[in-house]
């Protein structure tokens, strides 16, 4: 220690000069003032509501003059006994496990296609990306027309082969599938951009080196391209998972969760409980469960996949 001190005195680092001048406090205040606007926004719209939601989930819903009372885990027990919750959860799992792989596969396929040398590349890029710039509400309305029984696009095409009409969104067997198609169509273009950016980072000489070694296109994709795209895939995966729980605009427009709750996803159910039935405490409970679920998924993805991914 004694050996070090004279040196430190001899050459004080810049911060130490402030400290000696007695204005360390000023520096801190300055720093906090700079952070303040962002911090206020974050606290007001993210952290406070999240904590408040967690607290609300342990209270009853205030009704009329009767305020909220602490009910412990009552709301959670109600949830476990709620068949609609289980239905929504099941729907959401089916929805997510279809939308996520389909979106990723489609995004990757489109990126590979337009990364290669094909005619009309700019046009293809634009058209693949277009669904992304449309708001989900607009997308849902477009597809609402596609799915319309009788005169909708889908029925018109099928009408060339047989004349029966289909109520795509009204049928329990097809409704969820229809929503899945919309979600895939909407997000694939967006994720494609990330894949495209990653593909352009891969040196074309790798493909040439592999070609000289006799590797076919599929072998090269499997051994080289796909592993090199893994960081992008992880990013896309996390976003796709979140989107599959987060985006419910199209349900509001197209099915309202029907028929018979076959298209009720978790967030849509939360919205119904909270803003249609005004059972805010139960909605808070469901929200907490959804958040925990998402956090676990994201964490799991990072922990499991991260170790196997090569970052450049």
């Amino acid at each position, binding site marked *: 220690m004694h050996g070090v001190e004279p040196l430190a005195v001899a050459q004080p680092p810049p911060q130490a000069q402030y400290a000696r001048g007695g204005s360390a406090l000023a520096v801190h205040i300055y720093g906090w003032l700079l952070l303040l606007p962002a911090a206020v926004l974050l606290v007001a719209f993210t952290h406070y509501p999240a904590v408040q939601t967690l607290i609300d989930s342990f209270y009853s819903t205030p009704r009329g003059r009767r305020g909220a009372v602490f009910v412990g885990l009552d709301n959670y027990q109600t949830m476990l006994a709620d068949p609609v919750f289980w239905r929504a959860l099941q729907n959401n799992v089916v929805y997510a496990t279809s939308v996520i792989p389909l979106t990723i596969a489609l995004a990757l396929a489109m990126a590979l296609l337009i990364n290669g040398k094909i005619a009309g590349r700019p046009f293809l890029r634009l058209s693949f990306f277009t669904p992304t710039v449309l708001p989900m509400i607009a997308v849902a309305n477009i597809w609402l027309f596609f799915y319309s029984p009788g005169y909708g696009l889908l029925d018109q095409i099928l009408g060339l082969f047989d004349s029966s009409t289909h109520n795509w969104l009204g049928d329990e067997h097809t409704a969820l599938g229809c929503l899945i198609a919309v979600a895939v169509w909407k997000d694939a273009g967006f994720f494609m951009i990330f894949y495209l950016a990653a593909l352009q980072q891969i*040196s074309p*000489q*790798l493909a*040439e*080196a*592999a*070609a*000289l*070694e*006799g*590797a076919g296109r599929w*072998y090269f994709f499997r*051994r*080289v391209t796909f*592993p*090199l795209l893994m960081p992008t895939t992880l990013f896309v995966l996390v976003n796709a998972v979140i989107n599959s729980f987060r985006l419910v605009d199209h349900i509001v427009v197209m099915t309202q969760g029907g028929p018979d709750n076959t298209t009720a996803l978790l967030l849509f159910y939360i919205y119904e409980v909270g803003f249609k039935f005004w059972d805010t405490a139960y909605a808070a409970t469901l929200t907490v469960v959804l958040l925990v679920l998402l956090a676990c998924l994201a964490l799991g993805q990072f922990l499991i996949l991260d170790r196997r991914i*090569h970052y*450049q």
Partner: protein
Amino acid sequence: MSQISVQNVSKYWGATRAVENVSFDAVAGSLIVLLGPSGCGKSTTLRLIAGLEQVTSGRIFLGSQDVTALPPAKRRISMVFQSYALFPHLTVAENILFGLRVRKVPAVERTRRLNRVAALLGLDSLLERKPSQLSGGQQQRVALGRAIIAETPVCLMDEPLSNLDAQLRAEMRREIRTLQQQLGITMVYVTHDQSEAMSMADWVILMRNGRIEQAARPEDLYARPASTFAARFIGTPPMNILPVVPNTGDLLFGIRPEHIILGDTGIPARVQSAEFLGADTIVTCAYGGQTLAARVPGKAAFPTGATVGVQWHPENLHFFDAASGLRRDDVATSPREMPASPKNAPSFEEKRTCFAQK
């Protein structure tokens, strides 16, 4: 037997004539260097041999087989890229084994060959590393390993040493040459560094604007450059090329800096600068509106502005046609151009007067 035979090969991209009517043969087990300035078509020629580009016209033979239309995988060629093109996510071992895995070589054989190559290149302790954890020279060796493990008769290299520092480059140069001779590989090696070409090659092909300027053994390229371009491209500093008759005339003469003798006698010239390089010094002199570079051994004591006498042996002179730049061997013996024939061993004074008075 020639291992590689390139016959009248051209490659055009629209109006760009990257390679034009190039022909050469590589004897089995020899090292051919494609040398030339940037953009002269060296890489394109190499990529045509590899099959990574298709020829516009001409034929390419490997051994006795016409491979002009074959895809790269069928040509039995290995290649080292300038950027090494290592697979960043694979370990050194997997990088080297990549081709063997593609070709489904049995595991036992794979291990045997990997061990041999790793030992040959000193990579034994690095096999589990990723390319990003290697130095430039080590990455270069991995790229080399990937090329030689295939045991193909032909190996192509595109400026494999240009990313390395000078010392490592000299070291790798020797290693590659040794390896090539040891394994009897026929190698085509691209570089724009003339010293690399001179030190490694059995045969140098000097290219310019897509055409072959001169193809010769390194010593011949140095001793008998076919044109002013070749004369200036080989040697540091390059050959001095001056008109025989100052400001006019259709004849140029060339003299290498190491063949200039500075002394008290000879053509008087003024010292402009002296650049000490350790073993020798490059002295730049002005004479008759021209500059001459001379290489003199040791640290030469020629202060700037001093007057020195410039002399040379006439047999060290080269003559070139001013218009075409081509070598002219008839001049030295032609009585009209050269009253004092070299056989008579004229004094340097005589030589000077011969140039000065013309």
